[in-house]
Structures are given as structure tokens and as C-alpha cells.
């Protein structure tokens, strides 16, 4: 049995946004840029990451426009190289990695565990400033000529053979990396030490488990790319270094250091999304997440496995056959915890009373797209297949299915789901559903043809291609236009709803998390009194009893 919507809103003629909340408790620009409140810092992060998303998106738009025709006719070849490098660097380091932890995590972790703030509020604010400083380095790099190494900074190309702003880009990543480290430390400490009375580890929402796993990756992996970037900068400035094959160095060593971070970082770009999906699936199916413990530990398992698979990016780069074999097997193992999650979410929906509100539509989109993205990852883990498919559009399609199809869908689900909590108002539901469906169609039209292109042998990172690939490329570019509409719609109606949306009340979705049991938008210190957790996570019977009690009082 399913109904179309779950929303219950308070009577609009009498409902009011709470007079005092974190948005209006203090006023003026200074109260925002010097704030220690985790919710305000989350909003600062939201504004900055969306800004970077627009830069990265604009670069992607020009790339798709160039690839409309086989000839390289819109931009010059080296401009094209700069475009995809900027797209990659900005989207990976300044959008996908920070947005979910720093926006959703910052806003929700203290609310969900019943704390007044994160454990280290000043460190939290510092992390935002480091992020902004790192971002300024990237803006400087873009404005003064860009960088054309790709986001992977492959040596010795990046250290000896290009004359673009590698140093600026690397320094930006180095500094922004510290913002990730500080966020990771903050979340781990918060989750360990700040939980409300009664909030045991196995009563935590699965969102928290996902972000805990993400933070482990931040803490252990990010320092390694920091040192790799330092070595790149030194090698360019001093002219000698451990990556320079002409002077006895080893370029493969850079690949190891880079992917030791960047493969776990790929899971930073999906684990938080999985946390969002757990919350949304449960709320809109009105059921406890099936196999809570398995889903919780699969998050940690993904974080742990992420440290043992990095060399699968290097199968054709001259690592030994034996290590390739081991890394291939380890990579396939990652499919196990991922599959546990997908099967458990499906089982959660089974016999649930499913409601097709916007967050749920994004979530269903996520399940399909992430499954395709994940399974093609298993193809790529297979050594023989990888040698055929690596550095082709198959790879491009694979990781966009996971990162854009998966992560951005989950992010959209999360932003719509918690929008009433963040702003106190509802977004327009029908437009939301429309945008979710457009995003799904546009995404598939953009990236599915790229699987075929890659299989047929079209290499990535080229500005022109043989004419027989044009039909599929036209499909892809057309899809990108539809995808862009899917992104633009929320950019328009979400800001609109801040002023004109319907008043949401504290719990429009009848969800069970602690964050829904306080007013929307919450107070500066989240709760008038620290709540006591006396029930399991996703306990809808408890919620019903609780609401009746509140009503009878």
C-alpha cells in the first residue's frame, strides 16, 4: 500500500516560524563569519561549495559543447586540457569531498546525537577558513592561466613537462586538505564523546555510522596527499625530487602516494550519500532499516577496504602482475559491503508503506544509478577488462555513475529531506519531484552512451574524436543539457522557498531522528534541554506514542 505523500504540515493560517532560531538569534555579517555554531558553519560551507560546483559545472558544459562535433573546433587543445583539469580538481576537492561532510554532517551530526555543538567549534570554523584559503589558490590558478595536468597531477608531466600553475593548484589542495582533516577529527571526537544520555552506538542513526566511516578516511588518508603535494611543489621549485626519473626518482611512487589518498577519497564521495539514503529509505517506507547492524558495519568495512585497493588505478602503470592480482581481488571485495547496503535498503522498502516524496524519488534514482556504477566497478576490477577499458570513456561513465548519479542524487535527497529543518519551510513538492525525474533522465542520457563509447575505444581527455563516435556524443551532450535543467530547478525554487515556502513545523515527515524532535529551524544550542534517548533508532511506534503524549499534554 502506498500513498503519494507523507507530509503533514501545521495549519498554515496559524503556524509561525519559531521566533528565535539559529538563523536570527544573532545578526550581521560578523555574526556569520565568526560564528562557532555548527549549523551556521554548515551554511557557510553550503554557499562556498555551491559556488565551486558552478565553476566546475561551467567547465563541464564547455567540455560537452566541444565534444558535440568530432573536430576540435570550439576551444584549442590546451584550453580543453585546462577545462577538464579544472572540472576535475574543483569537483573532486572543492565540491564532492567537502559538501556532504561539511554541510550535511556539520548541520546534522550534533542534532542527531543530541549534542549542543560539535566537540571543537573553533576548529570547525578554522576548517572553513582553510577551505576558503585553499579555494582562493584554485581561483588564482584558474584566473591566471589554469592547469592542464588533469586532477591526478601525473608525474613527471606535472613536475617537468607543463608550464601551467601546478604549484598554485597543489597548494590549494594541500591547504583544503587540512580542512578535511580537521572536519574528520571533529566528527570522530563528537561522535565518541558528545552523544546524549542513552544514545548508545547501536541506537545511532545509520547516517552517523556513515559519517564516522567517512571521518576515518579523512583522518588517515588526507595527510598522505598533503605530503605528495608538498613533494610535487618542491620538485617543481627546486628541480629535483623523488618523482623525477631523470635523476633516479620514481614516478610510480607518486602514483602510490596519490592513490593511497585518492582511492579512499572516492569513498568519501559516496559514504555520506549512503548515510542519507538510509535515513530517507526508512522514513519514506515507515520501517526500521532492515539489518541495521549489517548496514552500520558495512560502512566501516567500506572505509577499511578503501585503504587496500588503491593500486587498481595503476594496473597499466607498471606494477607487478602479482600485486595487480591481489589488488584486483581486494577491489572485488568492496562489492560485498556495497551490495549489503543495496540489498538491505531494498529489503527495507519491501512491504513498507512507501511514499513518493521528492527525497524518496532521488533515493530510488540513487539505488539504480549507484548499482550500475558499482557493478561497472567490478568490471574494471577485472584485470583483463581493465586493460581494455582503462583511460577510456567507460571509466568516465563508471565514476560519474557513482559520484554524480550516486552521490549528487543522495545529496539532493538529503538537501530536500532536511530543507524544512534547515529553513523551517517546505520546498514546492511538485517542482521537486519534477527536478528529481529530470535529473535521473538527464543523467542517464548523458553518461550511459559513454559506457558504449568507452567500450568501443574512445579515449578520455581528448578534444576531438573519430566521426563514427558522433551520434553517441550528441546524445551525451543533449543529456547534459537536460541534466543542467535538473540542477537549475532546485537552484531556483529552493531560495524561493526560504521566503515563500509553506511553514514546515518541527517534524513534517514524521521521522524518528532526534533532529526532528526539536523546532525548525533549531535553536543556536539545538535543544532547550539535552534529550534522553530511550528507544532504538527508527522506532516508529515510539514516535506515534510520543506524538500522542505531546498532543494530549
Amino acid at each position, binding site marked *: 500500500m502506498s500513498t503519494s505523500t507523507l507530509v503533514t504540515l501545521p495549519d498554515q493560517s496559524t503556524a509561525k516560524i*519559531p*521566533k*528565535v532560531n539559529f538563523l536570527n*538569534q*544573532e545578526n550581521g555579517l560578523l555574526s556569520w563569519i565568526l560564528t562557532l555554531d555548527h549549523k551556521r558553519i554548515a551554511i557557510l560551507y553550503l554557499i562556498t561549495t555551491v559556488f565551486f560546483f558552478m565553476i566546475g559545472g561551467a567547465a563541464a558544459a564547455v567540455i560537452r559543447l566541444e565534444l558535440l562535433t568530432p573536430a576540435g573546433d570550439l576551444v584549442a587543445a590546451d584550453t580543453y586540457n585546462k577545462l577538464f583539469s579544472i572540472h576535475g580538481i574543483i569537483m573532486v576537492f572543492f565540491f564532492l569531498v567537502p559538501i556532504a561532510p561539511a554541510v550535511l554532517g556539520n548541520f546534522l551530526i550534533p542534532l542527531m546525537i543530541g*549534542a*549542543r*555543538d560539535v*566537540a*571543537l*567549534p573553533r*576548529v570547525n570554523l578554522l576548517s572553513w577558513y582553510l577551505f576558503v584559503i585553499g579555494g582562493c589558490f584554485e581561483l588564482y590558478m584558474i584566473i591566471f592561466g589554469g592547469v592542464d595536468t588533469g586532477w591526478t597531477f601525473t608525474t613527471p608531466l606535472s613536475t617537468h613537462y607543463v608550464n601551467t600553475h601546478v604549484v598554485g593548484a597543489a597548494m590549494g589542495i594541500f591547504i583544503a586538505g587540512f580542512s578535511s*582533516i580537521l572536519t*574528520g*577529527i*571533529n566528527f*570522530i*571526537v*563528537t561522535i*565518541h*564523546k*558528545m552523544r546524549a544520555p542513552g544514545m548508545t552506538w547501536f541506537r545511532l542513526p545509520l547516517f552517523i555510522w556513515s559519517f564516522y566511516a567517512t571521518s576515518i578516511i579523512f*583522518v*588517515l*588518508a*588526507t*595527510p*598522505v596527499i*598533503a*605530503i*605528495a603535494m*608538498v*613533494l610535487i611543489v*618542491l620538485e617543481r621549485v*627546486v*628541480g*629535483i*625530487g*623523488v618523482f623525477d626519473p631523470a*635523476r*633516479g*626518482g*620514481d614516478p610510480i*611512487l607518486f602514483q*602510490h*602516494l596519490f592513490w*593511497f589518498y585518492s582511492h579512499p577519497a572516492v569513498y568519501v564521495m559516496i559514504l555520506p550519500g549512503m548515510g542519507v539514503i538510509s535515513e530517507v529509505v526508512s522514513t519514506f517506507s515507515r520501517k526500521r532499516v532492515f539489518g541495521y547492524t549489517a548496514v552500520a558495519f558495512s560502512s566501516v568495512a567500506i572505509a577499511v577496504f578503501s585503504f587496500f585497493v588503491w593500486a587498481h588505478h595503476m594496473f597499466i602503470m607498471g606494477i607487478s602482475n602479482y600485486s595487480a592480482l591481489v589488488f584486483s581481488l581486494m577491489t572485488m571485495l568492496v562489492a560485498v559491503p556495497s551490495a549489503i547496503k543495496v540489498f538491505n535498503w531494498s529489503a527495507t522498502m519491501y512491504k513498507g508503506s512507501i511514499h513518493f516524496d521528492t527525497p524518496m524519488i532521488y533515493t530510488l534514482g540513487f539505488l539504480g544509478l549507484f548499482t550500475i556504477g558499482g557493478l561497472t566497478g567490478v568490471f574494471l576490477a577485472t584485470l583483463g577488462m581493465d586493460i581494455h577499458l582503462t583511460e577510456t570513456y567507460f571509466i568516465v561513465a563508471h565514476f560519474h555513475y557513482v559520484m554524480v548519479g550516486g552521490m549528487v542524487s543522495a545529496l539532493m535527497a538529503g538537501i530536500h529531506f532536511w530543507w524544512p529543518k534547515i529553513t523551517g519551510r517546505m520546498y514546492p513538492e511538485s517542482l521537486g519531484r519534477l527536478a528529481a525525474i529530470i535529473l535521473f533522465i538527464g543523467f542517464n542520457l548523458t553518461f550511459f552512451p559513454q559506457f558504449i563509447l568507452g567500450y568501443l575505444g574512445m579515449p578520455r581527455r581528448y578534444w576531438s574524436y573519430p566521426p563514427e563516435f558522433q551520434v553517441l556524443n550528441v546524445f551525451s551532450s543533449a543529456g547534459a543539457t537536460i541534466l543542467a535543467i535538473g540542477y537549475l530547478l532546485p537552484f531556483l525554487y529552493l531560495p524561493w522557498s526560504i521566503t515563500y515556502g509553506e511553514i514546515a513545523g*518541527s517534524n513534517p515527515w514524521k521521522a524518528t531522528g532526534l533532529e526532528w524532535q*526539536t*523546532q525548525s529551524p533549531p*535553536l*543556536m*544550542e539545538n535543544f*532547550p*534541554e*539535552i534529550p534522553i534517548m530511550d528507544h532504538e533508532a527508527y522506532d516508529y511506534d515510539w514516535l506515534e506514542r510520543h506524538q500522542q503524549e505531546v498532543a494530549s499534554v
Partner: protein
Amino acid sequence: MSETASTTHGVLAGAQHEHPPYQRHHFSSVAQQFDASNFAMWLFLLTEIMFFGGLFTSYLIMRNWYYPAFVAGSHQLSIFLGTTMTAVLIISSFTMAMAVWCAETGRKRDLILSLSLTLLLGVVFLCLKGFEWHGEWVEYHVPGLRFSVENFVNPASDPQVFKEYHDKPLATDMAENVGQYFFLYFVMTGMHALHMIIGVSVLTFMILRARAGDYTSGHVTFVENFGLYWHFVDIVWIFLFPLLYLISRHS
């Protein structure tokens, strides 16, 4: 929910609980605050291990490939200076541990003394390190900027080292790889020195705060966490010293 409880930070915190002034508003007890900051410091040190870990990995690979070059490079370093610096750092760790103890037991005068001694020893270490780097600059051992293979293709050109170790001349390509040794030497000791400079700056700030009596009224978190940091930087040097100075010294 209740809008009546909506007050600003200070009022809410002050009105509801009795607690010492150094307790931040979002913690429910001083013990929780101490636990949280202490745990955060340990996590930060974990990230530092990963940071230096990348360098140690590079070092081990290069040392395995170019062992003779690493031996020749290492013989250029002064074992006397290295040992002195190690001793200075270990003593500074002792004075830092004393500082933590003084803060915990509320001895303000002794705390200032211990912190000042730690600061002094840190500065002495940095001066010795700077002196040593200057020596390498003079000897043409700075890769990329001022480097010559002369001492390695013709060891007799450096009579002092030659007298002691009788190094055999290296082939030109292996001698070039001494550059790899010195590159890693400068990056590793440079990163370590950067941590020392940060430590010395924080120490200066701490001495000023200690004079105002900030750490001897029960709030020792900062001193304790800085102590962890200082010992960590010390331990990094304990690894750097044998790896860089003591390669094949037994000839």
C-alpha cells in the same frame, strides 16, 4: 518547542549550570571537555604519523635502490651535531613533562620555569639545525640549488670524512643519487623543523598565558595536549636521527 528557553549562549550556560569559567558552553562537564580535546589531539597526531609516513615510505624505497649513495650522503653529516640535537630534544621532552606535572599540581612558578626551559631547548635545537644546514650549503650538498658530486666521485676531496670512513668513489650516476638522499634529508628535517617552529611559537604564547595564571587554576587541557604534540615531534626526530645520520657508521 519552547521559545522561552531561547537565550544567548552565555545566559543559557550561566543560568543553568554551576561550572568553572573555562568550561565551554556545549560540554556538560569539565571531564567531557578534557576527554574530547585530549582524544582530538591523539587523532591529530595520528594524521601526523600518516603525513610523515609518506616521507618515510619514499625514504625507504630510495634507500633500498641507492644504498651506496645513501651511505656516502650520510657520512657527510656530523654525528656529533646529530647526537647533541637528539640529547637537546630528549631533555626538552623531560622539561615538557615537568611542565605538565607543574600545571596539574598548580605550581605556577615552576610551570613558567619548565616551559621557558623547553622553549630554550627548542630554540637551541633549531639553531643547531640551522648551523648544520649552513654547513651543507657551504659544502655544495643542497640538491637543485647548490649541489656538486665532487665529494662522492672523489671522496679524497673531503679529507675529514675520507680519513674516518675511507669511502670508495661512486660511479657518476650513483653519485647523482646522493642528491636523492640530500633531497629527502632536507624535506624530512625541514618538515620536522617546521613542526618545531610551530611548537616554539605556541610555547611562547603559553608562557604568557601561564604568567597570567591560566593553567594553574585547574584547566590543564591545553598544556597536556601541547605536551603530547611536543613529545610527538621529539619521537619523529628519534626516528630521523638513525635513518639519516647512522647509515653504515660501523666501518
